[in-house]
């Protein structure tokens, strides 16, 4: 039996008609569950989504950018999220390059889920290929230190004011980059790379 992906999706789009329309077409496919819709980024930021979010459909025209801007940095709390632009007016290409893909509002609604799945899959492939040789980010190092100190995911989440889901996705990335899966292995990594000293453990 084919397994449904169950991508948890958030839509950020000012027009209620378009918001509803995308939601309707997307949820015709069992692969998607739209967990929340927001009219703009401000509302999204003010009401953190409790669930893990895998896909964000975001209309870049809903925020004013006066200079080229890394849109992705707005979604820091969701490091692994697949970011897709909802497009029906002009957006400069420099802003668009930070998205994983683009959804054209004039597309046929019935192919919409397929389009989005394609974008998600190619983004995942890109991540797997490029993340290999990249050093741990500062955030990942902080999380790793907490792991080495023997903290649970819940404790780490509380300490860093992030959700447990975010902790888990950071940990997945740490493992992908270092190749180390076990907690004791990560502890050795942390000590050998001078992130923690052995005395404080």
């Amino acid at each position, binding site marked *: 039996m084919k397994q449904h992906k169950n991508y948890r999706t958030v839509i950020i789009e000012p027009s209620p008609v378009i918001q509803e329309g995308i939601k309707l077409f997307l949820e015709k496919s069992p692969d998607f569950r739209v967990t929340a819709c927001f009219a703009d980024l401000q509302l999204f930021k003010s009401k953190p989504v409790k669930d893990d979010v895998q896909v964000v459909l975001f209309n870049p025209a809903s925020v004013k950018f006066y200079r080229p801007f890394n849109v992705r940095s707005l979604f820091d709390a969701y490091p692994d999220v697949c970011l897709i632009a909802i497009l029906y007016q002009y957006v400069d290409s420099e802003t668009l390059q930070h998205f994983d893909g683009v959804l054209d509002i004039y597309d046929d609604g019935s192919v919409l889920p397929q389009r989005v799945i394609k974008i998600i899959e190619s983004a995942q492939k890109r991540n797997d290929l490029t993340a290999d040789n990249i050093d741990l980010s500062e955030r990942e190092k902080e999380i790793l230190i907490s792991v080495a100190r023997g903290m649970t995911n819940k404790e780490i989440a509380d300490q860093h004011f992030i959700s447990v889901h975010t902790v888990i996705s950071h940990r997945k990335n740490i493992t992908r980059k270092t190749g180390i*899966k076990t907690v*004791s292995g990560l502890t050795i990594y942390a000590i050998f790379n001078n992130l923690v000293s052995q005395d404080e453990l």
Partner: protein
Amino acid sequence: MKYVIFSENTRMADLILVNSRLLYVLPYFGIGLGFGEKTVKQVCSEKKISVSLLLLVCNIYTFDDYSPDSSCLRQIPVEGIIVYLQNSHKDYLEIRMPQVIDNILNLVKVCRIKNGNILNSFCEKYRQEAIAHFKYEEETVFPYIMQLLGGTGGSGYKIREYERNHSDIDAALEDLKNIIIKYLPEECTIDKCRDVLLELFMFEYDLCKHTLLEDKILISLVELIEKDGQ
């Protein structure tokens, strides 16, 4: 995809010439060297070993996408697999794992690795995990299967439980590989690490095939017997 796999008419020596890793496997069947031109079938009948079991194990160890069909599976003697697994556990615990660990301890000493003691305790923890892992199989799973074969499988245990609880003891080895290859100080030159790593690679490979044999073959066979018994 159809490809050439080992058959009962394969010459015994060719098994090793094709896949040198079988040097670790054959002793678990009680087979030594000096085959001359004898075939698998000949050696098995001399030593009273199940041809289908030997071929199954050798094929699993050699061809990555090999998977036996159900008629082939039915010919495999379950007692034979258990003896094979017990022999390999003994070898892993008494010889191969201590060797891997000794090599690492030695590396820590030779390279005077700062904080090297944490590697030592990692190894010790791994040893305890592996001992517990094998002990569960020897003391719970295998006796259950033997009871089942003897027609007295009423203990309430089911092989599904084993499938669920089958912990992963390869992860720690993979971590060790990554740590040695990527994160040791530069004083640990490649010629000092090479033997440690090669041994680790070999051991990890064998454990991975060993797990495959338990998960794919033993569990499906026992499930068949459980079903027959109902």
